[in-house]
């Protein structure tokens, strides 16, 4: 029997999920509840789980490099933030709010023109917050914060043209 403990970061917060595997027999403990079943890998790589109680779930699971697992399950396709504790720490501590002193440079992907600057120095932003809008190759590109942080410096103004690689803003720790 092998036991795995994973860290799951979901909409409800951070939790531990424990999986015990013994051959094809599996037991999952989550939120204090235990669910058992039998797991098989199908010939095309998908996983079929026959849960005690009769339900069957089947889908494709692909571990990714950054603490996430890509899941295709019925019509749902998405990423679940799930990893062993080491990879979870590697994926998240470098970017977590309050962690890391490094300043991150936000640069233009390609030459373009700044259409909009949505933040100002000193402003706190969440991961995914809109920082700037650039126009390049006839498309408008939204530049978003790769992580939560505080805007340290803004180098761009609406209307200016920028070269590929130009520094647009700097994001510091929260």
């Amino acid at each position, binding site marked *: 029997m*092998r036991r*795995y403990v*994973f860290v*799951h970061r*979901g*909409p409800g917060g951070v939790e531990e*999920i424990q*999986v015990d*595997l013994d051959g094809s027999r*599996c037991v*999952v403990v*989550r939120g204090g509840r235990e*669910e058992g079943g039998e*797991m098989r*890998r199908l010939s*095309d*790589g998908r*996983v079929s*789980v026959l849960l005690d109680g009769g339900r069957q*779930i089947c*889908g*494709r*699971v*692909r*571990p*990714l*490099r950054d603490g996430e*697992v890509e*899941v*295709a*399950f*019925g*019509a*749902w*396709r*998405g990423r*679940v933030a*799930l*990893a*062993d504790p080491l*990879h979870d720490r590697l994926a998240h501590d470098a970017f977590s709010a309050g962690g890391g002193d490094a300043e991150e440079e*936000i*640069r*233009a*992907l390609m030459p373009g023109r700044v259409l909009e600057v949505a933040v100002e120095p000193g402003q706190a932003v969440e991961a995914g917050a809109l920082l*700037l*809008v*650039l126009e390049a190759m*006839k*498309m408008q*590109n*939204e*530049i*978003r914060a*790769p992580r939560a942080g505080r805007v340290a410096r803004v180098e761009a103004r609406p209307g200016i043209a920028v070269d590929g690689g130009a520094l647009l803003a700097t994001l510091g720790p929260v």
Partner: protein
Amino acid sequence: MRLLVANRGEIAVRIFRACRDLGIETVAVFSDADRDAPHVAMADYAVRIGPAPAVESYLSIPAILDAARRTGTKLVHPGYGFLAENAAFARACGDAGLVFVGPKPESIEAMGSKTGSRRLMEKAGVPVVPGMLRPAADAAELKAFAKAAGYPILLKASAGGGGKGMRRVDSDADLEAAFARVSSEARSAFGDGAVYAEKLIERPRHVEVQVLGESGGRVTALGERECSIQRRHQKVVEECPSPAVGDALRGRLFDAAVAAARAVDYVSCGTVEFLVAPDGAFYFLEMNTRLQVEHPVTEEVWGVDLAAAMIQIALGGSAPFDATAAAPRGHAIECRIYAEDARRGFAPAPGRIDVLRLPAGPGVRHDMGVEAGSIVPIDYDPMLGKLVVHGADRGQARARLSRALSEYEIVGVETTLPLFRALSEDPGFASAEFDVQWLERRLADGLLAVDAESDDSVLLAALGLAGSNGATPAAGPTGSTRSLWGDVAKRESLRG
């Protein structure tokens, strides 16, 4: 008898299938990027026509004619895109003693000029969008038109088509800059910088009519298609019939389409595109003198094989069925599967298809140009193929679409499948109350927001991860089946 398809991907496969049904031998042409492609593997003959860039291969008239000569080809089908609406190519085929499967070169030419075709339509009594009849010599002419017709206007490339080379202008202030941009875009895309202007019809629907021209001048309308679901002027989802067209409007659209085709002595399959305004008025947009990407929805509803019909018209002058006796049955919907990452601004997503699981069952059809293991090259349009569903009515077609999408899997490249999954559940799609800007409004409004993970998907993730020994792939391409482009796209997406 041999037929050469001057094309690649799903349309080459499609036409080869029609040839097989008719007992005609198939000749494929391929660039260096396509030696392993499905259309080559299924052909009786195949000729390499050049390196990957289209201009040196699929657009090379000499290379294609040489391939035809070397293989004893009799018929040439251009598919869509590439040389399909190139009158010089059609003419060159004729001059070389080949049978071009399509309309006469003069018909292609007449409809190839957007301004020329508008003048023809006015003469034929087909309503056209108020617009300039000749390209503008300068911005002043455009301003004068805008003053008379009223803003907003649409600047269009005279030599353009397929939704490319267009720009909306709302005021005199934006006009000169827009004119310069459209002109230069047109010059680089179509080799001709001529620009004209049309009144912009707000919130129109795009409705097109399939026409079939036979020798002797008989032209039949074979139903209409609704193609309003577009992104950046490119069709994404099409259906037949149009849920917005009642019998009276349908009759008028068919009459106009037939008149348009007759005005250019049209033979073979073609499509007349219209804009239908919210008030029910309709206007000629353009005529596509070729087989369209979305022809399968017409085939499913009308029970015809349009590719085979084109071949038989090219050989004998008439379609293999009585076009006037054809009748529609049920409803069909098509989704264009592109190798574009719907979740990252539809960025092109070339790479290798590791897994391809196609749905099946009643009412499900696939016109695919790739297989599991195919590499999607960066050199061409990233369309992988089409999913087409058919049902007794639109409701059943939509249910079958949802079912098919839930079974559909492509792993290795990102595609537009998430867009179709979101659309198939969207109330606006269900009610069919859309116009050509509807999809862009819905996208801006969060159509593609991911549903929260369910307990079952988390359970599966945990079990799947444990089952692979909790192993996280090593850094670098060897340990992971994820494409390099995917990694680049993810990094870049954080930068916008």
